[in-house]
């Protein structure tokens, strides 16, 4: 039950994030929206992991491990995006 | 003995929840930022302290007891530091829109 509820939340977050990504103009808000989208994808994956419970485990550990690496990689991508936005703003200031 | 522990836990955790509810009510209902800060910082940390106190006798090991106490100590220390900073921020009248 929990798996389905949070899977649906993940789907909703993907929709919300994509909407923000397409509609907002501020670069930082777009980065935030992109993170919401990513969080939604992770939740869908987490729901799949939860449904794969078995062998005495409450959830399938393989998708969970992939989500862990995914969160770290998404964070690295976010830092890079933020740095690009800041560099662009600095370049605009000067020129 | 377990009955005694259970009664103790229920009483302290219930008292803790009362403070959590009071803190949240204050956060929502109080008219200005300073009084809201007052409600939150006092009530919540007392609430968490009571919950921690109630769970202490249920901890399985000395490590568990230490961890519970450390958690409460960390929250107290950080909110003691954050409180004045927040108050200063509120007095500057910063608005986030």
């Amino acid at each position, binding site marked *: *039950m929990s798996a*389905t509820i*949070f*899977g*649906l*939340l993940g*789907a*909703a*977050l993907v*929709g*919300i*994030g994509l*909407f*923000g990504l*397409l*509609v*907002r*103009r*501020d670069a*930082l*808000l777009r*980065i*935030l*929206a992109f*993170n*919401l989208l990513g969080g939604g994808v992770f*939740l869908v994956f987490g729901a*799949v*992991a*939860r*449904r*794969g*419970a078995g*062998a005495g*485990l*409450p*959830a*399938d*550990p*393989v998708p*969970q*491990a992939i989500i*862990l690496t995914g*969160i*770290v*990689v998404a*964070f690295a991508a976010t*830092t*890079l995006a933020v*740095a690009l936005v800041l560099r662009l*703003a*600095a370049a*605009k200031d000067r020129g | 003995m377990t009955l005694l522990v259970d009664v103790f836990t229920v009483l302290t955790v219930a008292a803790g929840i009362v403070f959590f509810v009071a803190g949240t009510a204050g956060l929502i209902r109080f008219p200005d930022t300073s009084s809201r800060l007052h409600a939150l910082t006092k009530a919540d940390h007392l609430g968490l302290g009571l919950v921690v106190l109630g769970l202490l006798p249920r901890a399985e090991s000395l490590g568990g007891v230490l961890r519970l106490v450390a958690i409460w100590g*960390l929250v107290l*220390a950080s909110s003691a*530091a*954050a409180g004045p*900073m927040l108050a200063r921020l509120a007095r500057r009248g910063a608005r*986030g*829109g």
Partner: protein
Amino acid sequence: MIADLLIVAAIVALALPVVLARSAFTAVALFVAYGLLLAFAWVRLDAVDVALTEAAIGAGLSGVLLLGAARRLAGGPPVEDAPPGKAQVALIGVGCAGLAVALGAVILALPDPAPSLAEPVMANIAAIEVGNPVTAVLMGFRGLDTLLEAAVLVLAVVALWALAPDAAWGAAPGWRQPPATDGPLALLARVLPPIGVVVAVHILWVGADAPGGKFQAAAILAAMWLLPWMAGIAAPPPISRAWLRIVIAAGPVAFILAGFAGSVLQGAFLAYPPGYAKAVIIAVEVVLTASIAVALALLVLGPPAEDRGA
């Protein structure tokens, strides 16, 4: 069930205003709250390992990064793109809602019983010699993924530094924080890091058999390293320092060396010798933790900038 719905409602109630917020600061504050709540969703999905990571990275480190950016961008030149028209927004809204509904339908139609790798993981976990199945997957069955991911972090730091202006190359990363020489913040910035280091070591150590591990420990360490910088009482080291670069590279290098040791001793890359698997894994994890912690902190700090005042 009630708890699930409560968490879902709260997350949606925060996610929508993040997207619709007028000011960047409000959006980021809401995003931090969203990250904290997402950690509860992970607990409810029986993914405590993920919950720990989400709380540390999603709420903690992302918050610092995005708030710093919001503060530095405030007062900058306005966005030049034309705003989307009403019809366009409505069209995008309908499209996104359609996508969400379609994805929801897919989730409701997932096969039952669900395919799962839990059985093979538990059948072979004895060979990896650790008790936490997620750690077993990360360091054992999917060790190559984790190795590549550690390399991605190094590459991200390199890419970030490549954005530094020529004049600033080799200088200290990040922007200068207004110093807090006394008062509550200065005290917290001095008292919290030692405690945080102990907690990080604890999280790393229990990660072999219980939720926890290198990513969570590294995120905590990075946060504790950043705290004195945020209080303005310590400056980050210049990026030209050799030790900094060695520490960043040490984790992936140690992992690769352990992998080749497996090739020589066991005949397969990343194969651990029986009886020593746990020792090798923990040794690699300790080095990786230091590398990831430094990389995460440097990613939050950003490239060295010419304008150090803003």
